[in-house]
């Protein structure tokens, strides 16, 4: 069953990649997957990872990336803010998701078993604390993602010469989406949780909860993709 789910995920990723990247080829030096759209009007591009200058040719449908030069002395970012900033959302958001998930499960258990909240020491003492910590991590993750986006943008203009690469376009799109979705999650948080529990006592509450966790899952997927792609850009394949 897990392999079926993975195959489905792979299928969707393939469709998405095809739409964004179009025809792709790999850098023959660092194996980074690049798009035909990344080349300029002379069919040339500079690999963002290993900085070789590639002239892209095609014969009988086969891609032939020919390397004749290397772009040395690329601008190094003066500060390393982006790599540092990026670890805030990547580090904190999964724990925010874990905290929210934990509170969801506990709320469901109490709802199903019918145990009154007032009887539960857990709810009166600990769940508000967990909820506050969860919200704090969520807030920091979302706010720091804006800082991550900004520093990444500055690095792109410096180190990559503001050249357009589909891989960086992907990061920009996903970052913007994560920021937007993150803000929605922060706002929804107040509709979902009350005093550390999810009450499930109204249609609005139930609907908000469903949307909240769907958005959390989507944001997590985006964050994982961003981190994964970012790692590729730094370390290659």
């Amino acid at each position: 069953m897990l392999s079926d789910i993975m195959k489905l995920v792979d299928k969707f990723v393939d469709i998405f990649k095809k739409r964004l990247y179009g025809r792709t080829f790999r850098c023959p030096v660092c194996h980074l997957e690049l798009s035909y759209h990344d080349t300029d009007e002379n069919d040339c591009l500079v690999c963002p990872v290993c900085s070789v200058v590639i002239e892209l040719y095609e014969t009988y449908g086969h891609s032939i990336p020919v390397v004749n030069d290397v772009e040395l002395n690329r601008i190094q970012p003066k500060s390393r803010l982006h790599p540092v900033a990026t670890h805030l959302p990547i580090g904190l958001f999964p724990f925010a998701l874990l905290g929210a998930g934990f509170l969801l499960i506990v709320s469901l258990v109490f709802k199903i078993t019918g145990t009154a909240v007032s009887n539960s020491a857990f709810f009166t003492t600990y769940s508000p604390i967990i909820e506050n910590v969860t919200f704090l991590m969520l807030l920091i993750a979302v706010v720091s993602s804006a800082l991550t986006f900004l520093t990444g943008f500055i690095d792109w203009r410096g180190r990559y010469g503001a050249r357009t690469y589909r891989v960086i376009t992907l990061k920009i799109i996903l970052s913007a989406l994560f920021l937007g979705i993150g803000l929605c999650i922060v706002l929804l948080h107040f509709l979902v949780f009350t005093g550390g529990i999810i009450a499930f006592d109204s249609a609005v509450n139930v609907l908000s909860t469903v949307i909240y966790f769907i958005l959390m899952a989507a944001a997590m997927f985006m964050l994982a993709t961003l981190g994964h792609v970012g790692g590729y850009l730094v370390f290659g394949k």
Partner: protein
Amino acid sequence: MDFSQTKEQQEHVEKARAFTKEWVSPNAAKHDRSGEFPKYICQEAFNQGFMNPHVPAKYGGSEQHVLDHCLIMEEICTGCSGIGTALGSNGLSQYPVIYAGNDFQKKKFLEPMTQELMFSAYCVTEPEAGSDVSRIKSTAKKVGNDYVINGVKWWITGGSVASWYFVLARVGDKATGFIVPAETSGIIRGVKEQNLGQHASNTVRVTFEDVKVPEEYRLGEEGDGFKIAMKTFDHTRPGIASGSNGITKAALNIGLTYARKRRTFDKKLISYQGISFKLAEIMTKLDAARYMTYLAADLFDKKLDNARQAAQAKWYAADVAMAAATECCQILGGYGYTNEMPAEKLMRDAKIYQIYEGASEIQKMIIVAKLMRTREVH
């Protein structure tokens, strides 16, 4: 002698070339890495009429000439010979039915293949019987109106995806051909073999344990099996040779493109004779292999004996493909050794052409056998 292509052949070639550039070449590396069977590409090939070309028109096929088929296979294998084998391997199992099958068998097994995408497989090779087909140990015992088949077949192309098999088994000591539907109870398929090249092609072990087939699925008479199996190769060897020519053509194109663009010691690589002479040699050998292939195919289409010519074409084209792929890697230098360029795959894919459908050594034996019956060569 007219060496030019007819208008119809030119249309076939252009259509196959467009299909290769759109569907085959862009997906070649992906299927080489993953080993995934390219079913969606075969579906597109089926939609465009590239599959099952030899099925007679009476059963819904296009009854294409072998020569036309060779022209098409060369184009497709220029993109990827693994994918080419995946969509071309039906011919090997279909031809025994075309050659020796009766109307019932053709209607039952060939006709459905022209209506929707289906595969069939040729089950002759065994772990202890490759070149020496007479060593096969699979048995078919007559029980009432059925035959019960037991045996192990190995390196069966398309074995996992086939809807039926052509199986060679012994009835007593007589090699006999059978058609065995894939859903028959007692057939066990092994895992996909991890071969050196042609990863897109599906190759598996197929075991037959007390597999019961009715008498009407027997091809010809008992003892006709060896003749059917060998006659099939006269038909398919030109197609195999053209697959090799596809690899040679790919090697030439890749080497030529690279040599024109890569600079070394301030000059283009192609300006060095050590490199350009390699390209000239590949081009010459490609043309030689092509014309031998076309001759073998043309003789078959004219219903003339082509055993020697088919053997010559298959052996020579395979050797040329291997040499061309090696030289292509050499021209690309270090880039010829990395899997991010298409050159190294050509070497891995080319090797099988010297082995399957009769190893090069067997082809030479066939040629010698023909020469032994010739008083004078003119």
